[in-house]
Structure formats: C-alpha cells, structure tokens
C-alpha cells in the first residue's frame, strides 16, 4: 500500500465528517459508525508492521509533497522506530475509548464522537509528521477537540479545567512557534528553507540562540508532559474530563510532550541538551517523588491516578535526558506502558463512578467479593502500574533506571524510591477499595463489569502482559532509530562535522562499498 500512512491519517477525519452528517437521534448508528471507523484505522495501522523494516533506523513508508513552497513546508509522513508504537498506541486506544463510553455519554453523543475522531486525526498527524510545521499544525489542532471534550462532557468544574488546559498548552506552543519560525529562517539562510526533521537535525545553530531555543521548545513539551512544576493543569483536566477524555489524555496526549523531547529537543539542540540535561532529569525526579507523595494522600481515585501520571512520566523524562540507549528505549516503551495501564485505570475508575457516582475511597471497601471480575482487572492494571515483573511497567522502569544510573547515579537512586512509593499508594488504593469489610450497604448490590467495558479493558490487559513477557517484540524495531538518534546527539556534542541523516546513510553506503572492494581485492591477491 503506497499511501498507507495518508489513509491512516485521514480516515478518522472522514469518519468524523460522516458522523457529523448523521441525524443526532440515531444514537446506536452513531456509535457503531464511530467504532467501526476507529477499528478500521487500527487494523490499517497494524498493516504498517509487516511493511516496517525493524533493522532500519530511518523513516519508513514515507510520503512527501510540497505544501507551502515559499516557506519550505512539506506534507511529509513517515514512521520510524520512535514513533511506530506511539502511532499504534493511538489507533489502539481510540476504539477502546469509544467502547468504554458506549453507554455513559448521555448528552450530545454525536458531537462527542466527532470530537473523538477529530482528536485521533490530530494525534496521528503529530506522530506521523516528518516536517516541523506540519507537526505543529496537528499539535495545536488536537487542543480544540480536547478542549470541547473536557468543557462539554466533563465534571462540575469542567470549564475552569478546560480553559486552564488550553491556555497552559497554548502558551507553551505559541512560544515554540516563534522558535520554529526562527529555525525555518535559519535553514533558509543556507539555501531553500526546510522544516523536514532530517534537515533540521543537521542545522548549525549559534550557541546563544541554541540555549534560548532549547528552553522555548522544552517549555512547550514540559507543559504538555507535564514536568514539575508545569503540571498543575493536569490534575484539574484529568479529574474534570469525562472517562474517555482522561484515557486519551493520559494514554496519548501527554506522550506528545515526551515524544517532542526525543524528536526535537535532543537532536536539534544537542549542545544545549548536554548542558541542561541535569536540569530536566532533576525536574523529572522531583516529579516522580512529588507525584507519588501527592497521590498517596488523595481521597479521590481519579485524582490519585492523575498524580500517579505525574510520577510515572517523571521516569520517562529522566530516561530521555539520561541519554543512553537503554534509558531512551525504556522511556519510549514506558510511554506506551503508561498509556495502557493508566488508560486502564482511568477506564475502570470511570466504570465504578458510573455505578456509584462517587470516586471517593471512603465510599468503598470490601467490594472484591461483589465485583470479582472488575477486581481482577483492576488489580492487574495496578500491578502493571506498580512495575511488577512479568507485566509491562517493570520493563520500562527497569530499563530507565538501569540506563540512567551511569549518567545520573544519585538521581537514579532517588528515582528508585519512587517505585517503592508507587507500590505503597497503589496497593493502598486496592486495599481500601476492594478488601476489608463492606461498610456501605449500597455497595452490596454493585453490578459487575459490563460487556462493552470488558471488551474495552481486556485488550489493554493483553498488551500489558505481552509487553511484560515478550518486550523484545516491541523493543527491537525501536533499537536502530534510538541508536541513530543518540549517535547524532553524540556527534554534535563532540563538534564533529554535522551531516544530515541522508548524508550519513550515503556515507555509510560508500564506506561499506569500499570495504567490500577491499575484501574482494584481498581475495584476488590471495588467489
């Protein structure tokens, strides 16, 4: 399939338009169409895998068209080892979200589904882009449906949360826009301007400008992640968002921040990255400990999970700025893990909220015997989040901690205590909700998890186990891309001549040819 990525990208938007044109009373049909569209997108995205060469570090299945010629902006799509699983995570989470909200969206169902599909379009565009401006367009585009999702379908304090979410993110990203324009102008100095990642990776940026640009980009992504102390919008947004919104937010949207670090900050500003990595790693570790401690004292389950996100994403940030192969791989896999396990936790909290209209820990207790199936799924998700060996969280955290130790020993030791804290607050949560005597009579009649919800959670659990048992499936395709990224950063730090990736490939090919000829010549001689 030549235009596979374009089809994957645009199909959700086509679906959104189709749903928008349906009569608003056809509730069942709207749900079925939305689900079908998202499942088809997932199936299409799985078709990337056979076409994907796991040994290659480069962008694959690429498509490129000129979009705005005078500025050097292209419509450019591609996947590499870094974005591959994030694309699949996106296409995977969307049907899960639609299924999980099968019966719980009571008002404006049509508009909800349109927003969800539009959101998927935005997320896919950001992960598939190979051009910075093109990326930026989607990075911003995502805000609108998310704003609507929180603001229309959210909880009591939704407006405050929605506006806070929007303004925080836009403040970061508009400043980044100034940086993007500057990069474009800079790339135009040497000839035709270009925003293609590969060209930007080879750009020589004056040191003063580099530090400034580094911080502008870092701010934008740090708000998105969110890195402590830019995290204050996140608990509000999570708590007020409807279940589906929370899942998408934790599952995918936050990953754009960490993805942005890996994709733009490290390779475009390598000198500044080396200079300031300690700062970001420190903030990451503060986030780990702070998030865990705050989560510990939350009386509200959803808030607890939201703060645990701050903690878990701290690991990703630490891993990214430790700049080793293992830590970077760990961060990427941890992004996927966090999407799965936190997504599942939000989903399950949503399930229980719908039944009891409460998320307070104090309102539960001992319900394990009433809702056994639900309990099992919840505990698996919790254990995945805690990082129990055999489940996905362990792989990610282990790689990050093992990889970071060499770079930041003290920080890593502190970060490790975050793992222990996570075990404490999450098991505490399980203990309070599921075990002990049933104190509230109304909990005796709680219905167990329903069919649609089951369908939504089980695939998440399957992947948690799969990644936990067989991480190699997921790590192998990202390895070359991560290695190349680090090599690029390393080369730039050492002040080596800067080559674009294409040039490097050509160089490598020439080198291989020369080797081959030498060997042939040697054979000739020996004969």
């Amino acid at each position, binding site marked *: 399939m030549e235009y596979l990525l374009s089809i994957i990208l645009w199909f959700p938007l086509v679906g959104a338009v189709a749903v928008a044109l349906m009569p608003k009373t056809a509730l069942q049909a709207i749900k079925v169409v939305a689900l079908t569209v998202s499942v088809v997108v997932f199936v299409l995205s799985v078709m990337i895998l056979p076409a994907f060469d796991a040994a290659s570090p480069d962008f694959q299945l690429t498509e490129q068209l000129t979009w705005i010629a*005078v*500025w050097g902006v292209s419509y450019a799509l591609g996947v590499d080892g870094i974005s591959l699983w994030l694309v699949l995570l996106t296409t995977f989470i969307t049907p899960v979200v639609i299924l999980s909200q099968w019966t719980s969206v009571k008002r404006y169902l049509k508009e909800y589904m349109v927003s969800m599909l539009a959101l998927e379009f935005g997320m896919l565009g950001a992960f598939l882009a190979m051009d910075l401006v093109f990326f930026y367009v989607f990075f*911003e585009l995502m*805000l*609108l449906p998310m704003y609507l999702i929180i603001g229309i379908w959210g909880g009591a304090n939704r407006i405050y949360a929605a*506006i806070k979410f929007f*303004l925080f993110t*836009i403040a970061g990203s508009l400043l980044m826009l*100034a940086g993007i324009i500057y990069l474009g*102008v800079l790339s135009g100095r040497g000839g035709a301007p270009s925003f293609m990642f590969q060209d930007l990776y080879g750009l020589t940026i004056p040191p003063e400008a580099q530090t400034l640009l580094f911080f502008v980009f870092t701010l934008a992504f740090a708000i998105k992640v969110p890195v402590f102390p830019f995290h204050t919008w996140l608990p509000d947004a999570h708590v007020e968002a409807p279940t589906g919104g929370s899942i998408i937010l934790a599952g995918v949207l936050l990953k754009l921040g960490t993805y942005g670090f890996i994709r733009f900050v490290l390779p475009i500003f390598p000198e500044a990255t080396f200079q300031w990595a300690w700062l970001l790693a420190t903030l990451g570790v503060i986030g780990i400990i702070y998030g865990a401690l705050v989560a510990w004292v939350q009386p509200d389950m959803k808030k607890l999970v939201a703060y645990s996100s701050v903690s878990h994403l701290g690991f990703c940030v630490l891993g990214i700025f430790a700049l080793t192969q293992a830590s970077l791989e760990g961060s990427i896999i941890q992004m996927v893990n966090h999407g799965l396990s936190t997504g599942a936790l939000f989903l399950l909290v949503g399930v229980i909220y719908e039944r009891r209209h409460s998320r307070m820990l104090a309102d539960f207790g001992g319900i394990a015997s009433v809702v056994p199936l639900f309990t099992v799924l919840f505990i698996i998700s919790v254990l995945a989040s805690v990082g129990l060996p055999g489940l996905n969280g362990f792989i990610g955290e282990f790689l990050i901690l093992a990889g970071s130790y060499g770079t930041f020993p003290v920080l890593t030791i502190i970060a490790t205590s975050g793992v222990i804290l996570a075990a404490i607050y999450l098991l505490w949560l399980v203990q309070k909700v599921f075990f002990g005597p049933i104190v509230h009579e109304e909990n005796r009649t709680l219905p167990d998890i329903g069919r649609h919800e089951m369908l939504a959670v089980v695939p998440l659990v399957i992947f948690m186990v799969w990644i936990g048992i067989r991480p190699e499936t997921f790590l192998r395709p990202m390895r070359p891309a991560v290695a190349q990224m680090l090599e690029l950063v390393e080369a730039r730090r050492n002040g080596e001549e800067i080559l674009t990736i294409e040039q490097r490939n050509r160089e490598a090919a020439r080198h291989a040819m020369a080797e081959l000829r030498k060997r042939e010549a040697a054979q000739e001689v020996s004969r």
Partner: protein
Amino acid sequence: MSFTPLIEANWYLAVLPEIILSCVGMILILWDAFFPKAKDVLAPLTIVTILAVILFQSPASGLFFGNTWEVSSLTRLFDFIFLVAALLATMLSRDYLRRERLEGGEFYALLLWATVGMMMMAKGLDLLIVVVGLETLSICIFALVAYHGRIAISNEASLKYFLMGAFATGFILYGTALFYGATGSTRIDGLQTAIVGGSPSPLVTIAFIMLLGGFGFKLALAPFHGWAPDVYQGAPTPVAAWLSVAPKAAAFIALIRIVSEVVPMASSVAWTTVLATLAILSMVIGNFVAIAQRDLKRMLAYSGIAHVGYMMIAVLLVRQDAIAAVAIYAIVYALMNIGAFGVVSLLDKNQNDPQTLDDIAGMGFSRPFAGLVLSLFMFSLAGLPPTAGFIAKFYVFRVAIEAGAINLAIIGILTSIVSVFYYLRVVYFVYMKEADESTPLPVLNVLSASALAIAAIGILAIGIFPSPFFRTAVQAASNILLR
C-alpha cells in the same frame, strides 16, 4: 514646466470599475425612488455588480492621469479585498435591513460609493487623490453608521465618528499641505527627493507624523483607537462588520505607500521606532482591554485594534515579503472579522441592547451551523491552525524574525497568548454554556448563510492551501518596491 495631458488614451479603462460602481449606485437610488415597492431587486443588482467587477477587473495596467493613478497587480489585490468585503456586507445586510424594515437603495449605493473611495485610496499616487478617496469613503461611512435612524446609539455613533473623522481629515490635510511645502509636490514618490542623506527636514517629519495620525485614526491604531468600540457598537451590525475591515485595508495600502518611501530613505531609526511603538501599543491595549469586554461588538473592536498592531509590524519592515504579508493579513482579517460580525448580526435583538456573550450561549447546539462557523472565525482570529489566521500570523512573525525584529515578534506572540483567552471564551459560550429561555435564536437566511459559508470556506482554503495567495501577494508587492 512640462505639461502632461490629463486625459490619456484608454483612461476610461483605468477607472472602469469605479465608473461601474458609481453608476450602479445611482441606478439603485433612482430605482428605489421610482419603484419603491420593488425592493427585491436592490440587493441582487448590487451583488451581481460586485461580482461582475471582481470577475472583470480593470483591463488596463500602468500609470494614468499624469502618473497619479496606478493600476497594477497590487491595486487589483486590494480592489479584490474591498469588493469581497462589500459583497459579504451586502449579503449580510439584506436580511438585517429587512428585519429592521430599513431596506432602501441608498444603503447599497453608499456601500458601493464607499468602495469607490477605497479604490481611489489604493490607486492614488498623489496625496490629493488619496484624500479625495478618503473623504468619499468617510462621508459614506457617516451615513451608513447612522443608517438605523430609529435607534439612539446609532446616531450617537455616527456623530462620534463624524467629529473624530473630521479631526483626522484635518490632520491628513494639514500633513499634505506641509508635505507640499517640504517637497514642492503632493506626489507620494516625491518624498524621496526631499530626503537627502538620510536626514529629512523637520517639515517632512511633521508632515509624516500628521499623516500617520490621520491614517492611524482610520486604522483604529492605538492610541488613535478610542472611537472604534463605540462606533462599532452603535452602527448597524453588518455595517460594523464591513467598517471593521474594508476601510482599514484602504488606509493600510495608502500608509504602505508612504512608509515604503520614507523608511528606506531616512536611515534615522526614529521613524521605525515610532511605528514600532504604535504597533506594540495596539497589540497590548487591544488584547488586554478585549478581555474585559462582554459585548461582542466591543470585543471584536478591541481585537481589531490588536490585529492592526500585528499588521503594523509588517508595514514598518518595508520588504517585499512584508508587504505581501500585510496583503495576506488584510484578506484573511476581512474574511474572519466580517464572518464573526456576521454571526453577531444574526442575533435578532432590539438594536439598543448590547449583543453580549450570553446571547450566543448554547448556539453550537441550537444553531449548529452558526455556532460552528463562529468558532471557526474565533480560532482563526486567535491564529490557530489549520485556519487562515494561523497562516497570516505565521507570515507576519516570520517576516519580523527574518528582518531581525525579534522583539516585535515576541511581543506579538505573547499578546496572542492573551488573545486566545477571550476568543476561547466565545467558543465556551457557544458550546459549553446552556442557553437560558430568553436567549434569542439567530435568524439564518439563505443569503446571510451563504455569506458566512463563503467566509468560512475562504478561511479554510487559505489556511490549507496558502501557496496561490502567497504567489499573488508577493508578485503584487514587488510592484510597490520596484517602481
């Protein structure tokens, strides 16, 4: 003294659009006088005329009337902006005028004549032609703002505009006189000869400041912006829509001509600094005061002041790219602001009452189309992709960064962040606020709906496929610098 014959061959081709628009304006008035019952003809005739002029632009190119009148791709581009603005305003006005029982041929005629005035401002290479165009425009505006004679604030607004406008005209005339005194001619390109070695005479400086003040008034550039919120609020809403964009574009093209003569010649930084200060003031005042507004028309007025500030960044840079950026911004701004005002004009309310945010509560669900396009216009005004507003802002900031005016770009971006807040609040009311019982439902007719659709499609088209517009604008901008 050499004498250039005033009437050249083909002179009528150079002013054909103006002649057509003026004549149709007279026909409209006569028609209304002789057939007062047949008002159905008025709007369609106006629309057809405008469309015809858009399609068959003046066939001649070059300089006419003793080199005081330019017809080029640049003037065509600005003509296009004026005509599209007039077209959308006509389409939005028809329903409004019917609803308010005001429809009359003179309304459309005034709109057409005002357009003629703007075209003169765009084409005049001589300050006197610009002034005559400006006055033609201004007189039409006085009448249009006061058109809703039954309501008090409309009359008050017109009086305000008239008094302030008279001052502005005075400034411009005085500036022109000083200009003549300094250069011995009223030709705009005569200015270059008056500036020798980068140090203009005090007379030229005062003339420039006077002209800047006068045009600043027409642009609603801070600190000359005081009239705008009151006048927009009082004017009939479709008139406010048109008033907020078209005359600004006309003032911009005239100002660009003057600035592009002055700034490259006089190396003294002071003039650029003056312009930059005005741009910054506009962006800051416009955006911060807009936050406090609950009346939609006043909010749009302050946001308009801010947008003029963004455009001024590009004006003061005087490069081919910068002028193209102003042109693109003017087109985009015309579409999105007329669109936004257009939705407000659909609110069927007693005109003396302010149209507040509460009036659009829940519109996204009660009137999905109007709600959707209003949100689109807001996102475009805020400069978010994939709308044209993003492209326009990107262009301006890019030009600024390229020219090394990074401070201006940063202030522009910081104030944009502020602006997101109040544009987003409109979307919040449209989609997240429940309508209360008394909220009037907007009245949507075919004509006004198509006007909104044209604006919305234009916004998306420029946002997604900007390249053809860039080519046109850059090519047009080369005209002004090469001469």
